[in-house]
């Protein structure tokens, strides 16, 4: 796989863009069917179901699935439609998001399934004539892991395997890096946003907004001139990399950021001044080995932005709910759990800083959505600095309009 190019190309042109894609009902339905139901979907981490018997439920109603994800006794992680083979009730009810179970017992009539989805017990089986248990087991969903993440694919037969789907990041070695066991979930937050899911993605796939939208918070440390957009050629799911550098001449940490940097692990907006801080494999993420490198973010179709730093990573997911609403998710991971209060202080300072800055990113979405839905602005325009967005929407459009079969036949 050494021939796979993970350097990419630089955007070269701006483009006018039609806005109906952000609110039209039929377009939204086509996105669900042709994109979301035929893509690998990042739904969590293996550390969410760390031990055999652990399970979690992911309800993605707009996409038409309640997924039961199970860490089997054989160590394999599987996913099933959370639908009983008897009368179609949810086997694990919605209020139980995570847990550990020896088997799954449907509350309606007590049908029992094992960790492999097999129907293993039917109370009063003699009430049924010629019941074939093999026909009524839990229906599997394609499930695989990459970089410690759990991915699902709702297609009958996924067009490509997950390692290939995530090229060139697989060849870059990023999957192995992110799969290491030391990663620790430091923070998670969610928000219901009254805006199309693509606006949530758009917000993180360009650096042009930084000078203005983040003028108060981070523009001095991470100016848009320090954001280098790269597009991976072809029609792959891994769309882009934004490389973000600190502007060393203008970086003025807050007093607390300065203290944190002197005491220990740095964060998204400040570099640690302590030698030998926890980090690993810089060659797989800081590709140019630049000392002023801050972080990269990777745009991954359909709905993920993955932020990779030396001492941590963050993943943003944008889930469609209706044409004009979505769910935003952000999970933050650090290199190891904090061992003392100082380490926790540094993690929390970074978490709260990131959270505050993200509320600036989220601030425009609902206003923009309302404006688009009124139809007064049938076109918007993306700059060269926003070139990743042009490519993001081009690839989505191809999948949405042409459908997954077209995609498979081309590859």
């Amino acid at each position, binding site marked *: 796989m050494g021939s796979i190019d993970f350097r990419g190309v630089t955007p070269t042109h701006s483009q006018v863009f039609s806005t109906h894609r952000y609110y039209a009902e039929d377009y939204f339905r086509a996105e669900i069917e042709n994109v979301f139901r035929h893509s690998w979907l990042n739904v969590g981490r293996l550390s969410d179901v760390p031990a055999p018997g652990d399970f979690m439920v992911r309800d993605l109603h707009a996409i038409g699935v309640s997924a039961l994800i199970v860490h089997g006794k054989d160590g394999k992680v599987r996913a099933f439609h959370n639908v009983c083979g008897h009368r179609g009730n949810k086997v694990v009810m919605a209020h139980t998001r995570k847990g550990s179970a020896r088997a799954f017992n449907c509350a309606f009539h007590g049908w029992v399934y094992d960790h492999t989805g097999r129907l293993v017990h039917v109370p009063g089986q003699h009430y049924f004539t010629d019941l074939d248990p093999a026909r009524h087991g839990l229906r599997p969903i394609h499930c695989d892991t990459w970089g410690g993440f759990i991915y699902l694919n709702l297609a009958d037969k996924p067009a490509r395997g997950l390692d290939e789907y995530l090229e060139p990041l697989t060849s870059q070695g990023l999957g192995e890096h992110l799969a290491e066991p030391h990663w620790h979930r430091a923070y998670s*937050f969610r928000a219901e946003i009254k805006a199309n899911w693509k606006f949530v993605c758009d917000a993180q796939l360009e650096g042009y907004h930084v000078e203005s939208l983040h003028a108060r918070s981070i523009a001095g440390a991470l100016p848009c001139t320090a954001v280098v957009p790269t597009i991976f050629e072809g029609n792959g799911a891994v769309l882009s990399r934004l490389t973000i550098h600190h502007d060393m001449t203008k970086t003025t940490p807050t007093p607390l950021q300065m203290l944190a940097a002197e005491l220990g692990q740095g964060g998204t907006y400040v570099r640690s001044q302590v030698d030998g801080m926890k980090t690993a494999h810089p060659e797989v993420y800081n590709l140019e080995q630049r000392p002023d490198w801050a972080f990269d973010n990777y745009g991954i179709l359909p709905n993920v932005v993955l932020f990779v730093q030396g001492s941590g990573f963050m993943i943003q997911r944008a889930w469609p709910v209706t044409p004009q609403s979505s769910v935003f998710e952000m999970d933050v991971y650090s290199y190891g759990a904090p061992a003392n209060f100082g380490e926790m202080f540094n993690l929390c300072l970074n978490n709260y800083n990131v959270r505050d800055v993200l509320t600036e990113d989220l601030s425009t979405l609902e206003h923009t959505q309302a404006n688009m839905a009124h139809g007064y602005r049938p076109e918007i325009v993306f700059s060269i600095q926003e070139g990743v967005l042009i490519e993001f929407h081009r690839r989505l459009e191809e999948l949405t309009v042409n459908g997954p079969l077209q995609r498979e036949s081309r590859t």
Partner: protein
Amino acid sequence: MSDTVPAELKPLAAFLEQWALPTESQRIARRLASDMQQLTAFHDAVLPHLRGLIETLNRYPLDALPAALKPYGYLALMMAEIDMAVSRFHSADIPGGFPLQRLHLVHEEDGSAWH
């Protein structure tokens, strides 16, 4: 011994009642309910002691922090909560920002290890 508060933390005791809040949600609520004068006064008074506070708490493993010291940890996390409000936004909330109250905090770093 473990429940006595070291002398270097004594100057901070006066702030505990109002500012030592155990959860992020409570600290956000306190931040948003305060005006800039209150936030700045608290921030500027605690800042000179913050390094000493952290170094004192670092003498213990996180999961063995004496109960009497935990409120001082909450105080430090309140400082982290208002870092950008005081030093960047000059406003308790994020000007024009998506409301902090609309974020669902599903996993707080400070929510499990040492309560």
